[in-house]
């Protein structure tokens, strides 16, 4: 069953369009991420789903029921806010009980469910503290406990991990995912962090300028980005504009590459890790295209080394990334051969098909 349907929702602030026909579904038990840079409309989408902002057009359905005009306090959603938005004047216990008491549940059931939510988040011993006495990570747990305690149809998470330090973020990310799967909780998860979205989601909707560019599993979105924007966001740093002619793809500055499979495209992309470097005039036999190039820069990243290259004769800039210790180490000024395998070339559309 579909827990949440965002059906063709548009929204403008004044004359500025913010959402342009957003369509996203969240199935029961599924975690769907809205991924995009700041200003892409992901938080606005969440606010429309929660009922904080009215949609200009389109519908929001919760379990098949149209809630587009229903106020937030009658929607079966619960938000985990980016800044947690805990009630500072209430103890942790009363924060978690807040939504249950609003639903007029009997006191015994409230106490029971509060306890269960606290234990679920492993914060039972903090029950009598005030939010101001908790660390950021603990506040985050209280925020999640408060939201899951009401067992919402859809849990809405607005960059819930962005205020935590990197190590804690990875831990809590795994924990949240395990929790979500155990509860079978439908979640709409807003993030700008590509890694976070890839590691936590069942499906990812990549947003750009108020539009959904691509929806798919983490593997689909990462390995088969369909548009220039998605590819760029997923770390495809080498993107060439051009056109397909006679079975070849010819870039605007004259580089010839094998045509990528699947339809006419305006761009071709290749990940830095898929760019192969070899000594001048050599090259791996599987390379579908080879070019001589000059190394213009080298950045040591620990596990890998990044090379900035200039292709001859066009001067096209290319980035390559090699695992540390793999192949030769190059220095700026070295002449190398750059090779691309045909299967690594990604055909990219300029924009999603309307």
């Amino acid at each position: 069953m579909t827990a949440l349907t965002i059906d063709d929702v548009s929204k403008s602030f004044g004359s500025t369009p913010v959402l342009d026909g957003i369509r996203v579904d969240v199935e029961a038990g599924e975690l769907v991420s809205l991924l995009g840079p700041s200003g892409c409309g992901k938080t606005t989408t969440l606010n429309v789903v929660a009922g904080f902002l009215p949609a200009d057009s389109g519908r929001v359905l919760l379990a098949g029921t149209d809630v587009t005009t229903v106020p937030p306090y009658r929607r079966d959603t619960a938000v985990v806010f980016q800044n947690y938005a805990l009630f500072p004047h209430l103890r942790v216990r009363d924060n978690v009980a807040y939504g249950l008491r609003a639903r007029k549940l009997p006191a015994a059931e409230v106490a029971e469910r509060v306890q269960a939510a606290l234990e679920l988040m492993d914060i039972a011993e903090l029950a009598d503290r005030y939010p101001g006495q908790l660390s950021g990570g603990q506040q985050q747990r209280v925020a999640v406990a408060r939201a899951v305690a009401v067992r919402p149809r859809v849990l809405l998470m607005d960059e819930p991990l962005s205020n935590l330090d990197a190590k804690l973020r990875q831990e809590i990310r795994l924990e949240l995912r395990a929790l979500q799967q155990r509860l079978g909780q439908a979640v709409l998860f807003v993030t700008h962090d590509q890694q976070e979205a890839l590691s936590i989601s069942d499906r990812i909707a990549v947003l750009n300028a108020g539009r959904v560019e691509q929806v798919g599993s983490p593997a689909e979105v990462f390995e088969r980005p369909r548009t220039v924007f998605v590819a760029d966001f997923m770390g495809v740093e080498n993107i060439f504009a051009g056109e397909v002619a006679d079975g070849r793809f010819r870039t605007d500055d004259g580089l010839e590459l094998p045509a990528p499979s699947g339809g006419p495209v305006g761009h071709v992309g290749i990940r830095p890790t898929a760019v192969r470097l070899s000594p001048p005039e050599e090259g791996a036999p599987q390379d579908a295209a080879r070019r001589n190039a000059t190394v213009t820069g080298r950045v040591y990243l620990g596990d890998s080394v990044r090379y900035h290259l200039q292709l001859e004769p066009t001067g096209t800039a290319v980035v390559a990334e090699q695992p540390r210790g793999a192949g030769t180490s190059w220095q700026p000024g070295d002449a190398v051969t750059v090779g691309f395998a045909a299967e690594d070339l990604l055909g990219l559309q300029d924009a999603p098909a309307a």
Partner: protein
Amino acid sequence: MTLPRWLTAVGVLVFGFMLLPVALVVWMSVFDSEFLMFPPPGYSLRWFTGLSRERGLFGGLQLSFVLAVSTAVLSTALGLLAALGLSRARLRWRGLLENGLLLPLLIPAIVSGVAIYIYLYQLSWALQVRLVPTLGALLLAHTTITLPWTFRLVHAGLAGLGTDVERASLDLGRGPWQTLWRVTLPLLRPSLVGAFVFAFIFSFAELEISLFLISPGQITLPVAMVQYAEFRVDPTLAAVSTVQILLVGTLLAVSNRFIRFGQVLSGGVKG
């Protein structure tokens, strides 16, 4: 952090400058002499015990207290409503309205006093009801001049709260009224107490506007003090001032138990 010595000296000097008049007034209130003379011939509490016989001053103290409490209640309530409306509603002329509420600050109190008097006097003729001088007029005037302060304090408090806690409450199933009662007002308490205290002190010490609006026999303390000082100069005034200082001091001390004033005045009330 250690402060440079000269900075400490400046701090002590400034505080001394501010507190010296207060200390002097308190000192003079226990002089055992009919006139203010230095050094005093001796000390006595007779000016305090005699206060209740000074009907003008003592009545003024009572009236001013009642008026200040009423003003503080009314002004805080109105300031809260204005702040809630202007910070939460989407209004076209919001900036204009917000600044408009601060306008009474720009007008000299004496001008406000004359203006309110003339306006109410004319209105009295039109309605054939006596509006000045009445206690109602006094309350109205004091509320008007304290409203910029109460509005500003509550408005800053609301801005400090942000909208997310209110959204969280709505999201968890409490309607707008319940949210106001269970979340917004409790979190605004420091701002509200601050606004109340400010309005009280302002009204309690207000002289210029009251001069125009008081009725004979119902005189506020500052006006009564001015009238007293026209005829006599003895430590009675110092004694009544000391009572005033103690009253305001107690109010500040009590409200400090609820809030930290520094936080309210800087706008942050979280936590």
